[in-house]
């Protein structure tokens, strides 16, 4: 019995430690982000890595999600003769929910893990100590460009995902289910409000911050050689994905 309680206690301690560290690193990143020198080259390099290099993955994910959404809702809505609303449903779902969350999760898998592995390796090979010894704050040099890249690139990727998702939905509805293209387009945009778009983009910016801060923090606190780097990478993906899904609920509640 005591053993189980010990385990639970330990688990909660680790959990709170992780959360505390996460916010500490978030604040330190904010503190250093306004300080010179601005490593513009490094910012651009990270933006390309997070943004441009994620385009193929995001394109495929968003496109097929839009297509599946359209297919599923069309089948369902046909039963109650509500086919006309498929366009609205697909557009609303993509803009408000699916595009930001799926982009967030895909980029976590691609980039959050890579950041944890990269910074973790730098930690275990003393490269982070070397940075500090060269009078360079690691949060300034490593965290700031990555978090800025996540914060700015995720909304752009989401915007791109929105367009492809809506287009994918239309493709299936019009070509496969023989919906009327004029009516479909009309219904797609009829019920959309600007808030649907902006709330999705705000979510994306938050998810971008979450996944980069988590990746960097997990990497930064890596201990225990190659095995530790592996553990950090896994933990970064799990923690960032969970945080994205949990915060998604609260963000939706707040932004509606």
């Amino acid at each position, binding site marked *: 019995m005591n053993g189980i309680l010990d385990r639970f206690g330990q688990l909660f301690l680790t959990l709170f430690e992780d959360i505390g560290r996460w916010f500490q690193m978030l604040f330190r990143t904010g503190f250093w982000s306004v300080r010179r020198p601005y490593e513009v080259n490094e910012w651009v390099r990270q933006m390309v890595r997070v943004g441009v290099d994620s385009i193929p993955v995001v394109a495929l994910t968003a496109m097929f999600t839009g297509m599946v959404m359209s297919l599923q809702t069309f089948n369902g809505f046909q039963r109650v003769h509500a086919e006309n609303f498929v366009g609205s449903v697909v557009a609303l779902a993509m803009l408000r929910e699916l595009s930001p969350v799926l982009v967030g999760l895909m980029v976590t898998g691609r980039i959050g893990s890579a950041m944890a592995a990269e910074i973790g390796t730098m930690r275990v090979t003393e490269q982070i100590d070397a*940075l500090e010894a060269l009078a360079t704050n690691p949060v300034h040099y490593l965290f700031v460009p990555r978090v800025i890249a996540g914060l700015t690139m995720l909304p752009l990727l989401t915007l791109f995902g929105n367009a492809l998702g809506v287009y994918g939905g239309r493709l299936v509805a019009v070509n496969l289910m023989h919906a009327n293209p004029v009516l479909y387009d009309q219904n797609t945009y009829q019920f959309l409000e600007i808030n649907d778009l902006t709330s999705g983009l705000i979510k994306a910016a938050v998810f971008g911050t979450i996944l980069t801060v988590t990746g960097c923090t997990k990497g930064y606190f890596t201990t225990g050689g190659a095995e530790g780097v592996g553990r950090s990478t896994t933990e970064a993906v799990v923690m960032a994905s969970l945080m994205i899904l949990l915060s998604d609920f609260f963000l939706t509640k707040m932004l509606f």
Partner: protein
Amino acid sequence: MNGDSNERPMISLRDVSKSFNGKKVLDGLSIDVARGETVVIVGGSGTGKSVTLKHMIGLIRPDSGHIIVAGEDLCCMSTLDLNHFRQRFGMSFQEGALFDSMNVFENIAFPLRRHTDKSEDEIRTRVHECLDLVHLEGVESRRPSELSGGMRRRVGFARAISLEPEILLFDEPTTGLDPVISDIVAGLILEMDDRLGTTTVTITHDMKVAFKIADRVAMLHEGRVIESGTPDEFRASANPIVQQFIEGRAEGPLTESSVLSP
């Protein structure tokens, strides 16, 4: 050459204690390093040599005690001030710790680009000077992974001296190198020290290297300095622990309490 008694030491550790996860690594350690002096700290694995060195540059903060460098107490410095203060140091790490996302040139140019207003031309000149000083040429465009262990150390040295620091710290500069390369690297440290006139602290467990480069050798045992003196005084030490370490014997007071002894 021991420091003048009326001159303040360049680096002074006073009563420094540090524990990791409840295990005491440094236990009231005190050591002074005079300006321009070359001190080598020796000791077995896990006696806190690296930890001592990292305290000197503020990479680790002590649980108690003071670290005074050039008259300033590192313990009371803010992160920003400490960050700035570190420009006066050059540190070389065990495996070189070169940034593997950059080539050799970019590694050495990194501190110059961040902390000086030098033009690209001036930076190129300075990088070549630093590489000359460690007797390397034609490696500028190579990646750290393409270099041998000895070359990586030397590039690490070149990066450490690029900002013309007053203090040089070497963490196990010869570990993992063959005896010939070790001797060359030790000679290089001596040469850099002579030409740059820096205060130098080296940690190693290689006694040959220690005797070659040191003005003064200090031995660390159980988190304290147990012996300190010129190489000749150190060799003649009456302390059986020191004698066992110098001779590299398995039997003696160093190993008596450990599981290795019968």
